[in-house]
């Protein structure tokens, strides 16, 4: 029997002191984190290699939440660090050249100014990034492929993977916040350091040196004494915050279940004598629950083609009690021509509901790709001969074919008596 493979080491955020490297390695080795920490401290004090090893671990080990390691994230933004380092080297080289040529004011002024400018640039960049807000996440409705309104026969386990992937993980904003704090803190440190350097270079700190030294020594001592208590307090606060978040999520789920599922179940009990009404209620609830579980944004039937078609299908389904399965691959802005396409599809759906004489679900399939929008409405009903449509029946000729032709599209009806009907609508950009 094959022995299960041990997962690779990860940083441990739950028991971390700095970055969770020692705790992660300890978990991987199955030992107490204190042992690894002592080993790293001894390696750092004895030979200095402990610190590089720790930094390498911080860069290379992925965090426990499954996101990629820092080094992998840097690789995902090719050239970013090289550009930053290159600009830094060029700037420093230019400054040293100017200094060597004698076109220099004073070391006591220029270097603090350079440091302050670097710090201010970091602060400005971080502030600008915060103002711009987080990077937009891909919406399921904007994706290349969205499959919704799956038939009721599809088991819950076959929920599209997209739904789970699109939902942001709990606490996903934390790395962004930490990065923001780090950048802001580093920028402030640079500016403060530049100020201190300027004061020191100009002799303004000579009187305060003894006082600052005493303050630093006392602060270090207090820090060493209070560090364990502070760490325990920080962990307690973090655990309490996590528990509060979990509790809020539970409350939110409970409230949603009460407002939607329980209400629908009550309605189902009341209308148990009407199978069509019960089926309609169940399908509406299914759609709503799937949408909620996938974390999809609110539908925009006035802006998106797929949402407009879904809305039309829901409307006809609720009016006639015949299930309509909608499958959408891609999406398109809802301009005037695509509004006409939606109207034609709606008419085709209404015809299918009225004339197919079948309780089988009607399929509405829409695909947007390569500048072409195709919509298919299929039923498994009795079918008909398209050539036998009376001249005075304007539904297919005007509302579907005529409308599509007027907006530069095409419509075709494929039907065979006894085998159902398919209406094909095509619109090119």
């Amino acid at each position, binding site marked *: 029997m094959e022995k299960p493979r041990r997962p690779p080491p990860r940083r441990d955020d739950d028991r971390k002191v700095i970055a969770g490297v020692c705790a992660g390695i300890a978990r991987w080795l199955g030992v107490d984190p204190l042992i690894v920490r002592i080993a790293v401290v001894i390696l750092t004090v004895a030979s200095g290699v402990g610190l590089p090893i720790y930094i390498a671990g911080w860069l290379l080990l992925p965090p426990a939440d499954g996101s990629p390691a820092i080094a992998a994230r840097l690789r995902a933004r090719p*050239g970013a660090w090289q550009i930053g380092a290159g600009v830094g*080297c060029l700037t*420093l080289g230019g400054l040293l050249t100017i200094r060597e040529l004698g076109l220099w004011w004073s070391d006591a002024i220029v270097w603090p100014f350079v440091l302050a400018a670097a710090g201010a640039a970091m602060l400005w960049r971080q502030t600008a990034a915060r103002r711009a807000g987080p990077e937009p996440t891909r919406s399921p409705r904007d994706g290349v492929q969205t499959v919704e309104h799956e038939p009721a026969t599809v088991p819950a386990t076959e929920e599209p993977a997209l739904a789970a992937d699109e939902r942001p993980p709990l606490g996903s904003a934390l790395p962004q916040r930490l990065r923001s704090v780090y950048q802001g803190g580093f920028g402030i440190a640079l500016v403060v350091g530049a100020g201190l350097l300027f004061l020191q270079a100009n002799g303004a700190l000579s009187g305060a040196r003894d006082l600052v030294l005493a303050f630093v020594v006392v602060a270090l001592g207090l820090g060493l004494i209070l560090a364990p208590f502070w760490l325990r307090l920080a962990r307690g606060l973090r655990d309490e915050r996590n528990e509060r978040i979990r509790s809020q999520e539970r409350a939110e789920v409970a409230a949603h279940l009460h407002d939607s599922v329980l209400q629908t179940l009550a309605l189902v009990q009341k209308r148990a004598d009407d199978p069509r009404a019960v089926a309609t209620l169940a399908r509406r609830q299914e759609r709503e629950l799937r949408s909620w579980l996938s974390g999809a944004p609110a539908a925009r039937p006035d802006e998106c083609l797929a949402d407009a078609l879904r809305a039309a299908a829901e409307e006809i389904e609720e009016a006639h009690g015949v299930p309509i399965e909608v499958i959408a691959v891609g999406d398109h802005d809802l301009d005037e021509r695509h509004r006409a396409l939606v109207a034609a599809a709606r008419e085709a759906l209404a015809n299918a509901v009225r004339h197919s004489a079948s309780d089988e679900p009607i399929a509405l399939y829409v695909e947007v790709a390569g500048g072409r929008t195709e919509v298919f409405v299929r039923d498994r009903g009795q079918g008909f001969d398209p050539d036998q449509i009376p001249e005075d029946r304007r539904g297919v000729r005007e509302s579907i074919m005529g409308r599509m032709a007027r907006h530069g599209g095409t419509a075709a009806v494929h039907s065979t008596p006894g085998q159902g009907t398919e209406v094909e609508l095509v619109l090119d950009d």
Partner: protein
Amino acid sequence: MSRPDLATLITGLSVLALGTVLLLDQAGQVSLDFGSLAPIVLTVVGLVLLVGGLAKRDGA
């Protein structure tokens, strides 16, 4: 004949220029000390890094 890669070309030229300066120093034509050598080395390293980074970003 394939066109030379711009990043590689600039890197090569930068290193060539640095080598020439060092050679001139060795031959006694110029006198380099740390104050004058450091900016040259930093500029060459910065140029190589910047060009490499930009090439990677554009090729991504």
